């Protein structure tokens, strides 16, 4: 528990952690929702926030609060799938390119640079246009994962390159470690903070992309996510008709979610930073 006490000294962690707990509570609440996930006209339409409907109701006849809990859960599912799978690809590419060097490094980096420079967003749209119906939560996550690794592979590779030059790599080789155990035992503990912070950045990117795909109508619009909620709010002109509660909910929720994730990731990656950990070891 000592670690939590140290982390709470950093205000960014405190803010991030509390907001994340709040959102996590909402996700749990979504399983106990009295209303159905997809059905329309379960409640009187376009009611302003009241005691019975905390955040009012929308033109589709659904309670905005409970819709929001489903939206967060589904968006997080997509983002987490995209985050973890793109980490695996980024780590593989980053470590192989960084450690192998030579031709493999040049090819892998050529691919990742290519992916970086061309507007991923447009290629994503092209592919989504074709998959349209098939873009369930999991498929969207996989699609985002496939496009989300290029940037981070490059940063992981540059860190591996610098680690390879350090003397303990030679000590490890002389101790009979093969390439695999060298990478896992020596490099992993030093790259964990980087992998963690790129994971959070990718999750934020995935949530943003999901919203745009939803606005373009490229995902299954019946499954409530932050993007589809916003999309329905815009098609029903909630801004013009003054149903501010319907459009502001997804907007505010997204901002709160992302700020919390960002604060959490910045403070934790600073805490995990090797230099800090070494100091802590020294200070024991």
């Amino acid at each position, binding site marked *: 528990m000592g670690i939590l006490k140290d982390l709470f000294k950093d*205000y*960014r962690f405190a803010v991030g952690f509390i907001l994340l707990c709040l959102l996590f509570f909402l996700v749990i609440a979504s399983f106990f929702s009295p209303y159905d996930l997809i059905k329309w006209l379960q409640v009187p339409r376009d009611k302003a926030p009241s005691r019975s409907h905390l955040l009012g109701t929308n033109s589709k006849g659904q309670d905005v609060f409970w819709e929001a809990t489903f939206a967060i859960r589904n968006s997080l599912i997509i983002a987490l799938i995209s985050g973890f799978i793109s980490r695996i690809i980024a780590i593989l590419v980053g470590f192989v390119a960084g450690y192998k060097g030579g031709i493999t490094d040049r090819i892998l980096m*050529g*691919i990742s*640079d*290519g*992916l*970086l*420079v*061309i*507007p*991923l*967003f*447009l*290629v994503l*749209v*092209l*592919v989504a*246009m*074709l*998959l*349209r119906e098939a873009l369930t939560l999991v498929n969207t996550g996989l699609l985002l994962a496939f496009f989300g690794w290029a940037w981070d592979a*490059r940063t992981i590779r540059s860190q591996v390159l610098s680690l390879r030059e350090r003397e303990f790599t030679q000590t490890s080789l002389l101790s009979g470690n093969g390439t695999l155990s060298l990478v896992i035992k020596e490099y992993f503990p030093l790259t964990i903070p980087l992998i963690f912070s790129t994971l959070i950045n990718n999750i*934020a*990117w995935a*949530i*943003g*992309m999901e*919203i*745009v795909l939803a*606005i*373009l*109508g*490229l995902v299954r619009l019946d499954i409530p996510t932050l993007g589809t909620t*916003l999309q329905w709010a815009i098609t029903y002109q909630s*801004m013009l008709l003054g149903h*501010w509660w319907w*459009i*502001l909910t997804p*907007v505010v929720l*997204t*901002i709160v979610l*992302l*700020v919390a*994730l*960002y*604060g959490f990731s*910045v403070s934790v990656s600073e805490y995990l930073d090797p230099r800090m950990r070494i100091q802590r070891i020294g200070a024991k």
Partner: protein
Amino acid sequence: MRFFRDYLIPRLIQYIVVIFCGITAVFFIPRMTGQDPVLEIIAQIQSQGSQLDPTAVKSLMVTLKELYGLEGTLFEQYINMWKRVFTLDFGPSFFQFPTPVADLLRTYLPWTIGLFVTSTLLAWALGNILGGIAGYFSHKNWSKILDAIIMVIRPVPHYIFGVLVLILFAFVWQLFPAGGMMLGRRMVVNFKFILTILRYSFLPALTLVILGGASWFQQMKLLVQNVKREDFVQYAQTGGVKEKLIISRYVLRNAMLPQITQLALALGQVFSGVLIVEMVFSYPGVGLLLYRGVTRGDYNLVMGITILSILTITTSVLILDLFYPLFDPRIRHR
């Protein structure tokens, strides 16, 4: 001469290779999905309620296949795709049938380029200068407060921030129009016209500058905090060099270099941001075109936009790479 051979030629080769890979990827990735765009379009039409008898469907399929260059073997499709790219002919747009995609792009692209260039450079300059100074005086309070504010703005995605700005400025305070600049008006260059351009493009530009500036601010602040500890800065401080000189000539000047390469790398994402923001404010650029093309399943238009964007971005990256040696003598003089 050495500079030309060592620096310029590798960059040009990389430029051509990336364009080639990019367009090949754009050609192959959609085909990998195993979906046939023609069937997709027909399904879309039928889902919008218009009934078509089978013969009409069959003839439509043939013409569409020809339109989208889907007939013949994969290799033939690939070759005539390249032929069409070189002549910048992306075939006719589907939802505005006779007009070729190239014409649509010719009217909309200048708007996007204008917004893209101005907002990116403004965001980059503003973010770096502010971030640099905040980084140098990182112990001061105003720098900590600014850092906290920026930390809230930075993670917000483009679309969400755009909607927020739209609601605030267009609906709540009604200072600016809610977008919808008249499409394709004749370009008459007079003062009134320029004023309307500024009025319509102010909100999208504001969104892009704030969001872009936030991320440049943070990267620059981090860079400056490292450069501040470098030997040459400490040496200048021991030498009693004026602080004004140290900040501009020593700290900012050196911290700026990695930011130029970072700008070149981030152009792809910045351009996507511009397209998204154009959708929010229905600014008459390629982004809006994309929105209409996608919602109506106009495959040719989206393909055209993608290829053109690849060309725009890779060219800007090349220009930035060529500018870099001017700022870094270590590359100019081996």
